[in-house]
């Protein structure tokens, strides 16, 4: 919308395309590229994709619509949004949960983005196609060097701070409108090359062949549920934050829901088309996760015609996928804390990025710390954050709460009508599914240090949030009463 039509008291996305790319850039991350194709192939291929698609429609799209709508409805970051729709201090404390989980998530994600930055830089230096290049030694050397890991982690947080410092329009939006299409184009180019390799068909058969029997297995559906909820970033506070900058005249259901969810999954499928034909053409192990990306694929590029070019496309694209997510994850804390404290946005950016950098040093230096935090926050912290946001929308918005959000916000200026069936999905289905997933993780890892850590996170952070916000909100009320006397 033109600037002159809207009185701006808060930053807004400069264009519809900017909002869409911010949502997509936030949700598309490293997991889309190294995990999604493999999970698909291992869990029944086409049968898994069918289950996954159904769950996207039933859970992810309604959930993300709810989260974006809460953001625009309140026009505030996480804690401010919770305060605006719920009067209870305990509920406002759930905003702290989302904040803590985001900072913790970024503290171990930033070093991973650092890996992608290191490889992107080396692809530009043509390292992977140079004579005598040994992928395994290169990777092991990098991981063993605390200095290099900390250095790339520092560089990533410096870049994140620089982009966020410039603000929503001049920083975040200007980056994502180029980075996200750039990533997609890189994957399309690699896909075309990959599909023309001899033996590529085996990769397609692994990922897309149908094992109908798997559709009847509970494990397939649990895996699909986990993939749906984790790959779309539902309930992490990102969609709420991005939505809080969405102008009133813009649509929510198509942009915030359908396009984000299906677009995000499309990048995962594009990665399957691009990478797995290469994996099978060169007889690599498809289930090797991070080492597939950092050890196996670099072996392949020197064997391909124009290998340096394909390496640059792949690793720069991979870095962009991870980096745009890092930007938007950090933005959640920046938006919230700049509203909740007396600090300016610029000061908050420096403070939050400094804190994430400091906390991330442990994960950058020690792979076991990174793995522990990934398990604890990935399996317990993120579902807790989803429960907090979806719980507030479903249960703390007063009379017919979800219905209020639907009629007042979601269907206002919408490009797609959202019916009343949306309410029960948000109120009952998504929270129950999240609890089921957490219980499944706890049961599968019963008694392990990771499970104990996860349970501590699951109950400890809400207690911390409640205590903190009880004090802060009590003091705020006291000062407000004093001022009115």
């Amino acid at each position, binding site marked *: 919308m033109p600037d002159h039509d809207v009185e701006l008291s808060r930053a807004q996305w400069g264009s519809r395309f900017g909002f869409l790319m911010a949502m997509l850039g936030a949700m598309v991350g490293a997991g889309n590229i190294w995990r999604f194709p493999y999970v698909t192939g291992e869990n029944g291929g086409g049968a898994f994709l069918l289950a996954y698609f159904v769950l996207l429609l039933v859970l992810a799209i309604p959930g993300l619509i709810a989260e974006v709508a809460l953001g625009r409805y309140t026009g505030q970051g996480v804690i401010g949004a919770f305060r605006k729709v719920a009067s209870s201090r305990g509920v406002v404390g759930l905003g702290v949960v989302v904040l803590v989980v985001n900072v913790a998530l970024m503290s171990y994600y930033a070093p991973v983005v650092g890996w992608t930055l290191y490889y992107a830089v080396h692809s530009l230096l043509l390292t992977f196609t140079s004579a005598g290049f040994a992928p395994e030694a290169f990777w092991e050397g990098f991981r063993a060097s605390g200095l290099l890991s900390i250095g790339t982690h520092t560089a990533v947080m410096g870049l994140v701070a620089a982009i966020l410092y410039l603000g929503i329009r001049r920083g975040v939006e200007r980056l994502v409108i180029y980075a996200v299409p750039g990533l997609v184009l890189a994957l399309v180019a690699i896909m075309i090359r990959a599909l023309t390799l001899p033996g590529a068909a085996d990769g397609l058969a692994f990922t*897309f062949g149908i094992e109908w029997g798997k559709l009847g297995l509970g494990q397939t559906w649990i895996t699909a549920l986990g993939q749906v909820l984790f790959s779309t970033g539902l309930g992490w506070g990102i969609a709420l934050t991005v939505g809080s900058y969405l102008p009133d005249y813009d649509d929510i259901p*198509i942009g915030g829901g359908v396009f984000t969810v299906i677009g995000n999954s499309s990048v995962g499928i594009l990665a399957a088309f691009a990478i797995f034909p290469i994996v099978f053409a060169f007889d690599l192990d498809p289930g090797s996760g991070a080492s597939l990306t950092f050890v196996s694929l670099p072996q392949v590029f020197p064997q391909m015609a124009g290998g340096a070019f394909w390496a640059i496309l792949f690793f720069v694209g991979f870095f962009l996928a991870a980096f745009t997510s890092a930007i938007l994850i950090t933005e959640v804390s920046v938006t919230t804390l700049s509203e909740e404290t007396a600090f300016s946005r610029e000061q908050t950016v420096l403070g939050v990025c400094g804190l994430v950098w400091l906390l991330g040093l442990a994960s950058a230096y020690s792979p076991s710390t990174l793995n522990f935090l990934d398990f604890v926050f990935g399996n317990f912290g993120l579902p807790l954050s989803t429960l907090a946001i979806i719980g507030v929308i479903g249960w703390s918005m007063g009379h017919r709460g979800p219905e209020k959000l639907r009629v*007042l916000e979601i269907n206002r200026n919408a490009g797609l009508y959202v019916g009343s069936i949306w309410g029960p999905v948000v109120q009952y289905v998504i929270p129950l599914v999240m609890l089921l997933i957490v219980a499944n993780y706890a049961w599968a890892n019963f008694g392990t240090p990771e499970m104990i850590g996860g349970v501590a996170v699951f109950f400890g952070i809400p207690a911390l949030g409640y205590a903190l916000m009880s004090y802060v909100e009590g003091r705020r009320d006291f000062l407000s009463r004093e001022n009115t006397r």
Partner: protein
Amino acid sequence: MLGLSLDVWATMLFCVVAFFGVSIWTLVYTLRQEERKMALLNTERDLDTYSPRALSDLKDWIETHPNPTHPDVEAARSAHNDCVDTLQSTDRHFYEWSRADVDRLDTL
């Protein structure tokens, strides 16, 4: 490639249509809607904010709220009435409103 089984081709076709197709279609659709909104704003200076079904839902929510003086109801009523006023004062609309539909509308 040609040796791939029928189920692999079927899955790939499903992915192309259900994922790539839907993504591209929604992207184009929503950007074109944005253009329409901007064009309407330029010519009409105002934009209807609710579709017929959405406005009916909003009216129903307002009328069934147990506390008619609640601030949420006030906000909803204001949103409803703004939309009705816009529909009655503009010739071209974003949503599919017929003249008869608009004539039947009343502010709350």
